[in-house]
């Protein structure tokens, strides 16, 4: 080692390293050209915490693929994520999509959290013939408008009611009968979207709705609503409420000694805050797109890898979707043996993932129909002894549903 810290051998090595790209023939470099995937996530603005969380899952997928030797059919090409902050704004999402396509020349795109930021990005991607893998937006129209380059790992919003009806049918087959439904939903856009879905689906599936209560987020006293739900004669309650409201409602129901089958909606119910309510929340159900205890080897491996990369953190459903979205694009490029946008798009239409590290989501197969929609499904989890446990569908359940107390 010389005084400057670099000896002659190191200098030679450095020189060789610098000269190497010029020596290697250009087609040799092209063979290991990285697969550039544009990642649209909100890392600032109102959805920043969700975006930062999802980014970790996108990065984990890229890391696992690269650590395993990259894309085999492309000579071990690495997956390179070109991450951009869409600031939780539709217009930024649109502009950044345009930039990633025309300036960064990405082969494919993924993102972009909420429906309002995903729709403009997907439209631009489709117009520019660039594959776009939607991670978590559930707006029905996204895969109903005939866009040829748009694909989705997530479910459609209008399918949620169907999942609940399927679950209630399953319960009936096990001798637990639920005949009549009561709804309690918050009055914001999310609550009302879920409400209109339930009201349009449930009666047609043989579950008449006896009462339909809407409440304001942050309502301090749910005793009146609890009384209405109890006296309606319903034996099943479907809700969509933020965690704090869910807790207060569950306490109000418990105070009246009314313990029907209770199904909360999404991450707002499947939440530590709701579990912290103790006995009132015990044995309640929640419908979510993925759960970390899902009985599937790839899912458990994903949770383990995530915990190793981010100690103390347990991934949420949208992170599983982000992980799968990145993986699916890489697998499509690998199958296409190309980083060309059209080749990846064509490979996505024939992709069929049933096992391997990308088989994380609860549906048995990850594939895409002619509209780009995957046959995604939800899972039902139940609060049992202080934690949420997957209880349906049977194929991925950790255990059967526990009887509802009361």
């Amino acid at each position, binding site marked *: 080692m010389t005084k400057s810290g670099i000896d002659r051998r190191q200098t030679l090595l450095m020189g060789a390293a610098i000269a190497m790209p010029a020596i290697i023939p250009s087609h040799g470099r092209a063979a290991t050209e990285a697969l550039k995937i544009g990642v649209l996530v909100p890392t600032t603005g109102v959805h920043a915490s969700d975006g930062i969380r999802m980014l970790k899952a996108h990065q984990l997928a890229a890391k696992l693929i690269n650590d395993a030797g990259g894309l085999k059919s492309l000579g071990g090409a690495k997956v390179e994520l070109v991450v951009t902050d869409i600031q939780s704004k539709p217009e930024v999402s649109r502009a950044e999509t345009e930039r990633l396509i025309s300036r960064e020349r990405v082969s494919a795109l993924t993102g972009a959290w909420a429906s*309002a930021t995903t729709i403009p990005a997907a439209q631009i991607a489709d117009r520019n013939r660039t594959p776009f893998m939607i991670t978590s937006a559930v707006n029905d129209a996204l895969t109903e408008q005939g866009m040829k380059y748009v694909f989705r790992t997530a479910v459609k919003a209008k399918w949620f009611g169907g999942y609940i009806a399927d679950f209630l049918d399953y319960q009936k087959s096990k001798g637990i009968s639920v005949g009549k439904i009561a709804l309690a939903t918050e009055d914001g856009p999310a609550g009302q979207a879920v409400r209109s879905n339930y009201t349009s689906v449930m009666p047609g599936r043989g579950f008449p709705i006896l009462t339909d209560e809407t409440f304001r987020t942050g309502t301090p006293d749910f005793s009146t609503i609890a009384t209405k739900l109890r006296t309606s004669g319903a034996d099943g309650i479907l809700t969509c409420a933020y965690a704090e409201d869910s807790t207060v409602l569950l306490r109000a129901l418990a105070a009246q000694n009314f313990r029907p089958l209770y199904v909360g909606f999404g991450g707002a119910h499947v939440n530590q805050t709701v579990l912290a309510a103790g006995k009132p929340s015990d044995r309640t159900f929640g419908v979510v797109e993925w759960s970390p205890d899902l009985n599937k080897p790839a899912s458990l491996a994903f949770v383990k890898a995530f915990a190793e990369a981010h100690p103390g953190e347990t991934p949420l459903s949208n992170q599983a979707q982000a992980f799968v979205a990145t993986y699916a694009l890489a697998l499509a490029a690998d199958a296409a043996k190309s980083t060309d946008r059209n080749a990846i798009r064509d490979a996505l239409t024939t992709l069929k993932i049933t096992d391997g590290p990308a088989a994380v989501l609860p549906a048995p197969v990850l594939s895409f129909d002619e509209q780009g929609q995957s046959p995604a499904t939800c899972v039902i989890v139940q609060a049992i002894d202080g934690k949420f446990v997957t209880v349906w569908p049977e194929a991925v359940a950790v255990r059967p549903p526990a009887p509802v107390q009361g």
Partner: protein
Amino acid sequence: MLRRFLPALVPTLLAILGFGFSLTDPYFMEIFIMVGLIGTVAVAWNLMAGFTGLVSLGHSLFFGIGAYTVAYGQVGFGLGPLATWPIAVLLAVASALFIGLLCFRYGLRGYFFSIATLAFSEVAFLLVSAALWLGRSDGMMLPSSSETLRYLQFDHKWPYGLIIVAFLALTLFLSQAFLTARPGYYWRALRDNEGAAEALGVPAMRYKLLVFALSAALTALGGAIFANTFAFVDPRSTLGVELSIQLLVFGIIGGLGLLWGPLLGAALLIPAGELLRTYLGSSFHGVNIVAYALLMIVLALVLPQGLGGVLSARLRRILPGKRDAAGEALVMETTS
């Protein structure tokens, strides 16, 4: 005639140059479209704020009316821009007259007028965010159609850029026509001293309603073009308070007393925001937003009369002996 319309002609020619340059890259065209569209709407907003002293914080309402009329017209009734754009303008004018009559009848001025307009736009934002038939907070996608011209759906961006150049030219020339005629002088008189202007016989109510209706009509047209250009509308982008604040910021940074001031503000700040996001956005979360905010603070401190104000002062110094010639017409300093 040429001298009269010079403040409209020069920015239009510059916009045509900008359009030509943007043809080289779709990303540049995206930025050009945003600058042209929001900048032009800011010019329409400034007719009220800069020239009449009516600072509206609720102009997103009219933009949203334009955008949602186009979206709902196409999704619900299959109508194209030939039908939806005039309806959008009429709806916006009706809304402006209603709000204006209420505000001016009860003598709301200054901050009170601003807050009243903000309240109306916020109510619209909340209503649309909860309206199922308008797609709630998810927004509405305009269905794609093979009838390119009927629904203004092009595969490339440049036709939208061309439409925006036309919209910009229309707004600038129409505004300049008003500003250099009786209404323009009355508006400035009302801005400087409403009581004195009324005492001299200026019918305040009528002329304030006129500027409100004109500004709302042009803003709604901007919203309608936005919907056709991006084939997607949502409450946040089209009815949110952020859009109204953007108009205010572009006006202040560009120069409130100039016809083309807000356009200059948009032409400076929108590309600056894009550049900062491109080069700083991926380094630390939010650092580009901090840099953007610092840029605005510095500009506001260094150039209190706006960038356009400084430019116009420079022009006047360059052309000292020609105060009533071309230079004066271009400068058109109106801030007394």
